[in-house]
């Protein structure tokens, strides 16, 4: 752990002109406010107010007026434990869904400034223990850190083997498609990994996958705010893909890993990877449009598609899933409060679901290890739990508005949060991953 000022120096040392714009151009109009899933937690957690915490630091460090006039011009460093508590509360009430960016009249991405807060907090020992633990797992030589995790992974692979009736082509060189399942999927939606494998086998793809996941939800560094670990994990993934010679990295998880590898990795690593990054919805839509698969249309209860923020707003995958889902049912309806670029987030991404009490328990049960929370976390987690429930309720209410029975989506975190919300608020629908949803509807031509 290092001093706050040193942490600030490190984080602000790699400022670029776009981030400078995010820091300097806000007029506090508040147009981002109604769109943030955490505004329901109170005005303190409005996106512009959370970003202001980073602007205080920036002004104190990098503006003449801030250095001379200090707090009078909104320029100050967090000094006390209370200041750090407040900053931590703000940093962990942002899912980085990019909705603030999309609705800001000046194109300011407040979420990026919240990531900077997380980076400072991580450096002063203020990253939540669950996320730090998962980051440590991700940075270890093998993410299958103990018997419990190894057993879970082995059981998933076993089930996949049984379902296709043959050995899995693990770590095969020269495959066209390298499927990259992550450990977070083994935790939240193991059946998605099995379904994806079945589909790859069914369509006769020349594919492979790593014998063990290359990360928990890579890069965990972006979630806890550790740029060095981001690079380290990206390097590991890149070297694996170089080793097997894969042309396309395929993911079923449309959360952080997809957007980070597809769009952010070149900025972080300053190099463009020599492979394409695709989500399974893009892959299936491509096969469907080329006529290589057919999708059986069925009468069903109402089906809707939830756009995961990282997949849609963050990565532009909007049309493909709709093509697939609409082909499968006679009863499809889009969510009422906005789709694609204007989709409302599930409320639990960027690590938030995992740092709640239930999230912690889930990880502990998965790894069969006790994760001891830091003293400051004891104060911060109970109110966060309440705010998380309020945040996910907005999505739950939106789904209920159209009386949907099945919510199809493409991100394991969204599935977890929506299903948790449905249970919590006693609603009668279920979220399901698109590969599971389509599995028995796909026919290979």
């Amino acid at each position, binding site marked *: 752990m290092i001093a706050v000022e040193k942490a600030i120096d490190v984080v602000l040392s790699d400022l*670029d*002109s776009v981030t400078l714009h995010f820091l300097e151009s806000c*007029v*506090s109009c508040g147009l981002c406010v109604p769109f943030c899933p955490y505004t329901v937690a109170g005005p303190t957690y409005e996106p512009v107010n959370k970003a202001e915490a980073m602007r205080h630091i920036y002004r104190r460090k990098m503006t003449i007026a801030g250095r001379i006039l200090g707090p009078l011009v909104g320029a100050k460093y967090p000094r006390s434990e209370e200041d750090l508590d407040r900053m931590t509360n703000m940093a962990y009430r942002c899912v980085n869904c990019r909705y603030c960016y999309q609705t800001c009249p*000046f194109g300011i991405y407040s979420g990026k400034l919240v990531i900077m807060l997380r980076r400072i907090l991580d450096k002063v020992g203020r990253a939540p223990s669950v996320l730090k633990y998962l980051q440590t797992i991700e940075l270890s030589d093998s993410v299958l850190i103990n018997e419990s995790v190894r057993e879970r992974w082995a059981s998933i692979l076993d089930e996949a083997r049984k379902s296709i009736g043959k050995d899995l082509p693990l770590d095969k060189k020269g495959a066209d498609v390298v499927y990259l399942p992550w450990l977070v999927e083994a935790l939240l939606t193991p059946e998605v990994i099995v379904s994806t494998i079945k589909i790859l086998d069914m369509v006769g793809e020349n594919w492979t996958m790593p014998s063990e996941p290359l990360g928990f939800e890579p890069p965990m560094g972006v979630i806890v705010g550790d740029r060095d670990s981001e690079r380290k994990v990206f390097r590991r993934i890149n070297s694996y893909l170089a080793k097997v010679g894969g042309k396309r990295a395929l993911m079923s998880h449309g959360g952080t890993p997809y957007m980070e590898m597809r769009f952010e990795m070149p900025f972080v690593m300053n190099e463009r990877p020599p492979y394409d990054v695709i989500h399974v919805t893009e892959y299936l839509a491509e096969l469907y449009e080329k006529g290589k698969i057919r999708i059986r249309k069925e009468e069903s209860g109402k089906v809707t598609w939830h756009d995961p923020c990282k997949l849609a707003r963050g990565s532009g995958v909007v049309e493909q899933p709709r093509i697939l889902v609409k082909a499968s049912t006679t009863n499809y309806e889009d969510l009422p409060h906005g789709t694609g*670029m204007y989709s409302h987030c599930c409320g639990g991404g960027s690590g938030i679901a995992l740092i709640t009490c239930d999230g912690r328990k889930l990880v502990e049960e998965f790894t069969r290890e006790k994760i001891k929370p830091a003293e400051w976390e004891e104060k911060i987690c109970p109110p966060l739990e309440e705010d998380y429930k309020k945040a996910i309720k907005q999505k739950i209410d939106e789904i209920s508005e159209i009386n949907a029975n099945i919510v199809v989506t493409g991100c394991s975190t969204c599935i977890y949060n929506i299903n948790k919300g449905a249970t919590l608020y006693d609603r009668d629908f279920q979220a399901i991953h698109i590969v599971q949803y389509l599995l028995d509807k796909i026919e290979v031509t």
Partner: protein
Amino acid sequence: MGLYEFAIYDMFTPTIAIFAFGMVYRLSRYLFLYKRTAQPVWRRTSFVHRIYILIDAFLHAIVAAIKRSKVTFVTGIFLLHLFGVIPILFLLSHHIAWWSYYFPPYSILRPFAIPTSSTSSTLTVTAPFTPVTDMSNGFVNTIWGPLTIILNGDVLAILAIFGTTFKLLERIVKKVKERLDRIRVGDFVALVLLLVILISGYLATHHLPSNEIETYKLMLGIHILMAELLVILLPFTKFFHFVFGFWYGKLHEAYDLWRRGL
């Protein structure tokens, strides 16, 4: 020497000099911090779609505001900006005359001049004509036709004053009640300054509070001096959004959306 002469003759050059220095300072920070990095593979979209996204980038926040932040849209975007400060600043006949004096090509906008009021006035740049009615006032004949009833300095200034006052009070309430960090001292400075400029301009135009030349010169002096102060502060305050932040932000956003194929 009075305030009016001071504002007109003494402050003009220093104002422009400080503004220019401030702009160079602010823009150079952007240039020095520019980092060239590797790019992700762009999603393929058509040229037409990219043009649509470029236009949409400038508009979608406004559309979102109409849907979900109606009060902010009406007071902040519509009254304060679109139907207040922007047309007054760039199209009010007096201001067109001012802009044209320092930058002659600006006079090309003269046909679009907005008069001070919808009724005839010696302060308007367009000739009044007398309608064939028994009303005592003539009407100003502008390119705006009947729209002049609302597109005139009086109406626009009152709407802008209303919008600015609302934003000022809203911020005071938010700061006191909700103790929001995001409400900054600079917000109050900017809004009070804008309000003083709008009110003094309105009073000067109408020769208020009295019809004496000294009062008129005082009001006009305050108006010009405060406008100069705004220009001085522009590169160092939130007013910067008007000349740079808005344009840079939206162009960057459009570029980012192109990349992601949205």
